[in-house]
């Protein structure tokens, strides 16, 4: 155990590390945004009136949640290319991450929708709100506000999971780390630096998600209380 740590060699690659971290963050933010939209849509489909739409959403959610993201990434990147649909590594990464996180978002949002008391829906009906208005003003805002902490955790996990895209030559932080490691042979130091960078990025993600909550849930901001 007389190992001499030397962080200078991997740290000399700081521009690459920074670029990789930026790629990771942009992958994560794009996937979070589109994944949220997909997730809300699927949650509505899953709780809606149309039986076959609900079943379709259910199948999508189960398939995605019970297969590894790595294999999903491979199917999008290598599989679609072999079917004649060439996509770049970055695009494939975003598509796979959106499809993946959409399923998880959908499950979380569904739990939120189901936690809305029936009396709220009846009240909305009494006020003559249309189905769409009820969803838009009565159901979704409190539902999403209620499950927001779970959603935040899911999106931080997504940021960490984006490291899987290093396996399809998307140049994000982990891919950069693998290259530096094979250049410098300072594997312990390289991966420790990258682990620290991911920790820092988790904090950045959490901060960003908190800011979004502050803007999106004014009632919570005013009262300082959750619903």
């Amino acid at each position, binding site marked *: 155990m007389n*190992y001499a740590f030397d962080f200078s060699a991997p740290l000399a690659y700081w521009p690459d590390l920074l670029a990789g971290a930026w790629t990771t963050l942009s992958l994560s933010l794009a996937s979070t945004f589109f994944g949220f939209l997909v997730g809300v849509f699927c949650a509505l489909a899953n709780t809606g009136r149309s039986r076959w739409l609900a079943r379709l959403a259910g199948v999508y959610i189960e398939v995605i949640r*019970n*297969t590894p993201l790595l294999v999903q990434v491979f199917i999008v990147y*290598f*599989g679609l290319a072999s079917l004649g649909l060439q996509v770049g590594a970055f695009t494939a990464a975003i598509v796979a991450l959106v499809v993946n996180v959409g399923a998880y978002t959908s499950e979380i949002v569904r739990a939120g929708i189901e936690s809305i008391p029936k009396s709220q829906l009846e009240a909305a009906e009494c006020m003559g709100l249309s189905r769409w208005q009820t969803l838009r003003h009565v159901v979704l805002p409190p539902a999403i506000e209620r499950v927001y902490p779970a959603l935040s955790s899911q999106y931080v996990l997504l940021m960490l999971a984006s490291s899987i895209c290093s396996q399809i030559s998307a140049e994000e932080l982990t891919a950069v*780390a*693998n290259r530096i490691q094979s250049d410098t042979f300072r594997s*312990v130091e390289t*991966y420790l630096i990258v*682990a620290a960078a991911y920790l820092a990025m988790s904090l950045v993600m959490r901060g960003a998600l908190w800011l979004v909550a502050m803007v999106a849930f004014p009632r919570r901001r005013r009262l300082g209380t959750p619903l």
Partner: protein
Amino acid sequence: MGFLNASHFQFLFNGLLWTVGLSLLAFAGGGLLGFAVALGSSYGPRWSRLAVSLYIKLIQGTPLLVLLPLAYFGLPSLGFDVAPLTAAALALSIYVSAYLGEIWRGCIESVPRTQAEAAECLALRWHQRVWHVILPQAVKIATPPTVGFMVQIVKNTSLASAIGFVELARAGQIINNSTFEPFVIFVIVAALYFALCYPLSVLSRRLERSFHVAHR
């Protein structure tokens, strides 16, 4: 499917067996460590609570795909030679322990405080209270989420392919390297993972439901 012959399927099946084996190893190792983590944060002295919460935060803030090469490339440079299986089992166990430990801590703390007080009134010693009163109830609460987390473990073993361990995902990659039919192969691989994980998901949900019915 014509390009896949019996030996390909044999190879995939071997990969599947390694995926199951690695999952079991990770669950055993992560379970033992996680149990220590849960006890250390629920019943430990102040310093152990702090240490455990720091451990959980550190591991949960690091991708598994960084922990795996850290174990596989890092340990040899510190003077320990590890095989891919050892490195994968080690990294996965540590990763799993942080998540399971947190789940179990929550379960221990969700046992009503009155139970501990009642046990105290019966003059049970501290270890008897924990072992005979609190833990049995915590185990019951913990079963559904633990089974649910097994799905995560099985899926996470696929990342061991990144350090050259030939499990199901890596077996698919290797077959793809000679047959060049990625879509078909990876859909088959995904279906095999689904066959492993879906029963666990269903079981977890059933347990959850029966638990709720029992406690109405």
